[in-house]
Each structure stands twice: as structure tokens, then as C-alpha cells.
């Protein structure tokens, strides 16, 4: 049958239709998570007395996950995982404090060396991925275990114990602390600097995703790598770039870890956090298969995570059940997310 359908002459091509702002909003990946976040917020605001008066603590908890969730979300949109992200944070902190201590260097030197080392590890992840063609799951699982061991092994070898020496009496500590671990009292609201880092990263990542060529490349490599390459997207550079992004965020988080606690870093820390980052990204609407998601969604995912985690304590629920409650809250929020998104898509 080659006859054309009797088209209504007055109806324009649907691709040329001007979408109303409401429709555009309903099509965003973060829509469902916004509803989930509002639901979790209202829930705890109603049942937990001190939840509303302690939003600064909630935001702080969300920001420590959120700083990492943003680049992890970008990576997942690009179709890859990074299981080493959690321990990489600890590696970054250990490098700064041990370099500064052992060299009796200004703390800032340690901080910069740490950035280079962290970037090198991120580059290694990306490079191994494109060179071997193995799934990123297995490559970064390897780096995760290697880093975990190296964190403990090197710390023990260099400083003799498994947690590092304090560096808070060294030059540059105070100024670096202002950048990575300070807080500002605005009335009774304690604005932690991590919240600013978090917001800045979300803004930067959103700009990259939606306004730059890089953003198109990220969606393209996550959607279909081969098709992307065929239309001239530099797949390798994009993927390495995404791993470098995770490395930079791990560096920021690592410096926060270090400067919050006078430079004493416990070398075995960080295990399991990579799943929290991935969870935040998925709650925020990223697909595990890549090609779809947003940085704002990941930030909202981190916010849901932070609200649930803190809310359980504010509500004074039985602490033995903490992890059960947390898991249940996250599952419920995510189910609500996807339900809302499906309804919204159907309504369009």
C-alpha cells in the first residue's frame, strides 16, 4: 500500500509543533524525581519535629553524596560505570595529606599533587576501557580493589599506621580548609561549603549536557557508541573525559574528607559509597543502560538520599532498622518517580 494517509491539511507536522513549557517540563528526566523529593520532604516534615529546623544538616548530607553523583550521572549517561569512585575519594585525601606531611610541604602542594594523581587514576580507568574494550564494570571493579589495597598498603608503608598523621599545624591548612570544609552561619542556617561545590557542579554539568557539543557527544556515546562514531563523535576522548570528571569530583570530596578532620584520614574508608552515587543517579532518572538522564536529576536523587538518611534519625525510628528504612524509602521514592514519569509521557 503506497497510498498516503488522508492527512488533515490543517495539522502541521508534529515535529514542528511548539511545545508548551508544561509539556517540555513533563518530558524532562528529572520530573519524576522532583515529585519523589517533594513526597519525601513532606513526609519527614510532617512526622519528624526537628527535620525542618535542621535542613542545613540534611543538605550537607545530600551534598557529600551529590558532589560525586553528578559526574557519576554524566558517566552513566555516557554508558559507563565507575565502581572505583568511592575509594578514589579516600585515595585523593590520603595523597594530599601524606604528600604534604612527608615532604613537609605547604598543604596546598599536597592538594595539587593529589589532583594530578586522582586525574591519572581517572585517566587509567578511561584508557583501560577503550584499549581493552572490556565492560567498565569489570575494569573499575579492578581499580576499586587495587585502590582499596593500595590505600591501606601505601599508608601503612609510608606512615607506619593505617590512618594518617594530623597536618592541621602545617602551613596552608587553614586557607585550604576554608575552600573545602568551612561553613558560613546565615542566621541559624549553617551553610557548608560542600553545598556550594555541589550546586556549582550541578550547574556546570547541566550547562555541559544541554548547551555544549560535549553534551551531545555524551548522550550520543551512551545511546549507541557505533552510530556515534559513524557520525564523527570522538568516542574515546568523550569517555576518558567523563572518567576525568569523576576524578575531579573525587578530588573535591577527598579534600573535604581531609580538611574536615585535621588531615587524619582512615585508609580503609570509602567502600560501598560508589553504590550510593550510582543509586542517587538512578533515583534521579538516569538509565542503567546509558543515553538518558540529567545532572539535576542526580542532584535531586542525592537530595532524596540525604533527606531519607537524615529523616530516619530525626524521626527517631528504631536505629537497628536504619538500613531497612533507608532501602525502603529509596525504593518507594524511585517507584513513585517512574510512575509519575510514565503517566507524564502517556499524557503527552
Amino acid at each position, binding site marked *: 500500500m503506497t497510498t498516503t494517509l488522508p492527512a488533515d491539511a490543517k495539522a502541521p507536522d508534529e515535529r514542528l509543533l511548539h511545545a508548551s513549557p508544561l509539556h517540555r517540563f513533563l518530558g524532562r528526566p528529572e520530573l519524576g524525581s522532583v515529585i519523589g523529593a517533594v513526597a519525601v520532604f513532606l513526609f519527614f516534615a510532617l512526622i519528624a519535629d526537628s527535620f525542618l*529546623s*535542621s535542613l542545613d544538616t540534611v543538605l550537607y548530607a545530600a551534598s*557529600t553524596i551529590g558532589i560525586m553523583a553528578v559526574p557519576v550521572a554524566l558517566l552513566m549517561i555516557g554508558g559507563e560505570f565507575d565502581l572505583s569512585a568511592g575509594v578514589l575519594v579516600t585515595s585523593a585525601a590520603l595523597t594530599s595529606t601524606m604528600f604534604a606531611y612527608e615532604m613537609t610541604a605547604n598543604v596546598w602542594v599536597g592538594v595539587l599533587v593529589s589532583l594530578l594523581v586522582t586525574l591519572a587514576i581517572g585517566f587509567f580507568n578511561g584508557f583501560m576501557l577503550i584499549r581493552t574494550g572490556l565492560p567498565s564494570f569489570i575494569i573499575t571493579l579492578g581499580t576499586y580493589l587495587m585502590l582499596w589495597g593500595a590505600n591501606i598498603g601505601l599508608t601503612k608503608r609510608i606512615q607506619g*599506621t593505617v590512618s594518617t598523621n594530623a597536618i592541621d599545624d*602545617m602551613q596552608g591548612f587553614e586557607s585550604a580548609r576554608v575552600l573545602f570544609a568551612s561553613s558560613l552561619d546565615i542566621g541559624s542556617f549553617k551553610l557548608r561549603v560542600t553545598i556550594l561545590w555541589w550546586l556549582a557542579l550541578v550547574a556546570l554539568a547541566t550547562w555541559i549536557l544541554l548547551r555544549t557539543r560535549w553534551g551531545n557527544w555524551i548522550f550520543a556515546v551512551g545511546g549507541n557508541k557505533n552510530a556515534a562514531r559513524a557520525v564523527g563523535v570522538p568516542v574515546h576522548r568523550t569517555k576518558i573525559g567523563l572518567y576525568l570528571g569523576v576524578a575531579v569530583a573525587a578530588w573535591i570530596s577527598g579534600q573535604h*574528607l581531609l580538611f574536615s578532620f*585535621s588531615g587524619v584520614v582512615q585508609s580503609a574508608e570509602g567502600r560501598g559509597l560508589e553504590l550510593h552515587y550510582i543509586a542517587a543517579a538512578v533515583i534521579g532518572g538516569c538509565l542503567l543502560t546509558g543515553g538518558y538522564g540529567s545532572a539535576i536529576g542526580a542532584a535531586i536523587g542525592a537530595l532524596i538520599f540525604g533527606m531519607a538518611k537524615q529523616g530516619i*534519625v530525626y524521626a527517631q525510628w528504631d536505629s*537497628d532498622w536504619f538500613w531497612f528504612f533507608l532501602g525502603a524509602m529509596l525504593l518507594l521514592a524511585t517507584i513513585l518517580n517512574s510512575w509519575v514519569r510514565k503517566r507524564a509521557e502517556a499524557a503527552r
Partner: protein
Amino acid sequence: MARSRMARSTRVFAAAATALLAVAAAGCSDSGGKDAEENDGGTGGGGVNTPRMEIAMVTHSAPGDTFWDIVQSGSKQAAAKDNVEFLYANSEKDDEQARLVQTFVDKKVDGIIVTLAKPEAMKSAVRAAVDAGIPVVTINSGAEYSEEYGALSHIGQEETVAGEAVGEELNERGRKKAVCVVHEQGNVGLEQRCAGVKETFSGSVENLTVDGASKPNVLSGIQAELEADGSIDSVVTLNADVAAAAVEAKGAAGSEAEVATFDLNGAVAKALESGELTFAVDQQPYLQGYLAVDELWLYKTNGNVIGGGQTVLTGPAIVTQEDAPELKKFTERGTR
């Protein structure tokens, strides 16, 4: 195109490296760091001339745990003195720990030191060692099972007793409401510590579960608890790393609560000195490692049993601000 891009990135890299070296050259710290480290004097010394023997230790420690690091320091010191080859292995999984003990039985070492945090799982492995004629000393937790399984003696701290000591100390300080921070759920030793506090403390005690994998998480968890309940006047943490986070959380929440902790490290000693921590319970891990090796050496060379087969208690010792200056010297060296 590719070449020019490569040349460009090489140049960028070179510039970055040069800049870094310049910063490094100018960026020395006049205070703190390695240069300020005192030479605390070696702990070497003469040894004995008894025949070389192999002693293995198998613990339930997670990798990179400060506490077990100190236990090992003690063992190594005793091993150096007693002409002993000290072997160490650990696993947090009980079946794996039992397998490790079996490995050392097969290796026919001269003595085995083992922890009984998960007693039932270790029972057959310890029996196998004893049946093979290898003397076994148990350390840390599990005192009540040591004799039953055929070990020579037990060197450690009763976790419940340590908790009770904390409860009494809190009473003496006139505290009313305490929160006990559990950083690893399902760890029997930690639960026993909190239960011990509950036993003797005349005020009320609540447990708080936090995510021990990350210190910022621990911090925000404790802070939330303090904000949720303003009547909490003491926080009890169960290891030294969590104590630092609790001190931070208290400041951030603007709480007046006192913070006390189990176990020591350098930061705890410092915080005791400055008064941020009110007291710490030391179970002297160094002593547990040291005495266990010494015990096996004594048994092998002279048939002695320290404590005559009774449990040898290494704790709880309560340390406060007054003890801090002495303590700092030792904690920095990783031996207390």
C-alpha cells in the same frame, strides 16, 4: 591534526609540571610535617637465643583497621625480642577466618593466636590446631569460649565489662542521657559495649546506627541525632575514628553533650588533651598482641601459662585529660 593536538597536550602537561615543581620548591611548610617529627628512640634491643619459632595470628579484623594495626605492632615487638617469625592473616568473614587457621595448622607453625569474635565458626579450627599439638592463645573477645575450645589462655578485654566501666564513669559525671554510636551493624563486640553501658548507666541510653564507611556520613548522622533530641548530654563512640566525627558533629549541632570513646589513636589523645573528649576507654591492644606472642614463647620454652589459665584482662583502663600528654607520645608511634 592528531599530531598538533598531541603536541599541544604535551606542552600543556609540561607547563603544568613546571608550575607544580615551582610551587613545590616554594611551598615548604615551616610548621608540622615530617621535619617536626621527633626521633622517639628505637624500640630495638637484644633478643634471646632460643631456637627460631613460627607464631601465626589470625584475626577477624577488617583490612586497614587502626586497632588491629596496634595489636600487630605489639606482636612484632615481642616477636623481635623472642626470636619468633611472626605471621599474620585476617578476614572479617568467619568461614574465611577458620580456613586461615586451618592453613597455619597445615603449615605446622609453633603456635597460633586467634580471636573468637564469632566463636561457633572458629570452634573446629581451634580444636584442629590443639589436636595437632599446636598451642593456641585466644585474644580480644570470646573469653568465655577460650578454655572450652582447648586454648592455653585468653588475653583481652570483656566488651561488656568495658561498657559497664563507661556507664559508671558517666554516672560519676552526672550524665542523664547518652547515645551509643554503632558504626558497624551486627558486630557482636560493639553491641556488647553498648549493652554494657546500658547495664550500669543510671540515665537512659539509646543506640544510633551510622554508616561507618564514610566519616562525613558518620558526622551528619550524629549531628542529626543531637539536633533531634536536645536532651542528649553524652555521646559514646565505639572507635577512635568515629570519635573525631562525633566531636565535629557536636560543634556543628551546637550541642553541649560530652563525647567519650572506646579505643585510642593520635587524634583521640590530642582531643583528650584539649578537652574535646572527656575520657577514653583503653583496652591496650598493644598488650594483647605482645602478651600473646610472649605467652606462646614462654609456654614453648618454659611451660609457663600467664595468668595460670585464667583470663588475662588488658582493659578497661579509663584515660582522661591528665593522661593525655604521656599518651600522645605513644599513640603517634602507633603503639597505644
